[in-house]
């Protein structure tokens, strides 16, 4: 299995110049940024890139952002949440315009990635767990799964402040309606949709246990979110019987 996967080598990494094709509001605090990256070799679902900004005085700041798209071609889609104290994200969310250029390094990440089963057969079920903007690489994974028409059972548990803060809502709905088995469940931490009696509050061990594929089905679990979210969830997953090697984590943070 792993031998087969290794035959699908990851694209080579390098520094590239990216031009902003489009930037638009994704949520009240986030922007969706479409880049045209010169020489981009394509990327796997779940990978990220580093963005380097250089000030006129030569000061540079580099930050990592997950990629919401995957596959061949030079188009790359990011979704960036504005961190109030951030050094880079407020610029990317509020100032960046079509036609601007950025330096990007990627595609990066050889661990937090998903590939469709190489033999076309059904792989182990996949449970995706997102906290806030940590959903971005999981959107790439869910869309790759849908586009491959892969028969592997997929679920996404998505912890988000309010319905207005959901990233890629249309894309997730489209993936859930497609032929590839995919279900989405939301945990609203501040406000649930009007007219529903969904509970509101941070994810608990009980809600996690009720909302994810059970350990008896031996799923591969991808968890992405803030450090606190990832470590709480990963700890509970192990208590619920999931094996540490079946849990792939990515902690984000940082401005």
């Amino acid at each position, binding site marked *: 299995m792993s*031998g087969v996967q*290794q*035959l*699908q*080598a*990851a*694209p*080579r*990494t390098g520094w590239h110049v990216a031009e902003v094709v489009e930037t638009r509001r994704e949520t009240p605090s986030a922007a969706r940024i479409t880049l045209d990256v010169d020489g981009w070799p394509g990327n796997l679902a779940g990978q*990220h*890139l*580093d963005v380097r900004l250089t000030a006129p005085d030569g000061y540079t700041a*580099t930050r*990592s952002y997950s990629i919401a798209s995957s596959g061949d071609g030079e188009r790359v889609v990011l979704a960036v949440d504005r961190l109030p104290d951030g050094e880079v994200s407020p610029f990317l969310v509020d100032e960046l315009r079509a036609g601007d250029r950025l330096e990007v*390094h*990627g595609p*990066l*990440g*050889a*661990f*937090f*990635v998903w590939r469709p089963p190489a033999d076309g057969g059904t792989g182990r079920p996949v449970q995706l767990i997102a906290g806030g903007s940590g959903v971005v690489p999981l959107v790439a994974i869910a869309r790759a799964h849908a586009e491959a028409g892969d028969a592997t059972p997929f679920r996404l548990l998505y912890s988000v402040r309010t319905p207005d803060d959901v990233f890629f809502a249309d894309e997730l709905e489209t993936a859930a309606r497609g032929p590839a088995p995919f279900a989405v469940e939301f945990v609203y931490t501040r406000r649930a949709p009007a007219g529903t009696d969904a509970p509101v509050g941070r994810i608990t061990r009980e809600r996690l246990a009720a909302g994810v594929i059970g350990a008896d089905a031996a799923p591969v679990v991808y968890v992405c979110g803030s*450090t606190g979210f990832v470590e709480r969830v990963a700890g509970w997953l192990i208590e619920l019987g999931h094996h540490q090697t079946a849990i*792939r*984590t*990515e*902690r*984000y*943070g*940082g401005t």
Partner: protein
Amino acid sequence: MQHFDGNLLAGPLADVFAFDPTGARARCNGCGAVAELATMLVYRSGAGSVARCRDCGAVLLSLVDGDGRMFVNFIGMGAIEIATTGRDDA
């Protein structure tokens, strides 16, 4: 201090190796645990990054970047296991 994980070092390490090694496994000299570099706990500061074993907290590597040079010290890990079959640069 806020920490992240080894996924964050994919870019800097890809500048050192000929590829991104975060999917490769290494053994912690402290406790013997074997895990992907992506699972290390990474602490960043203005001076650079320190990566620790998620199981025992021992320092596995440090990375200091500045002044046009990068210093990488794999101080706490044994051999790194790298898949060579199928890699496009193998």
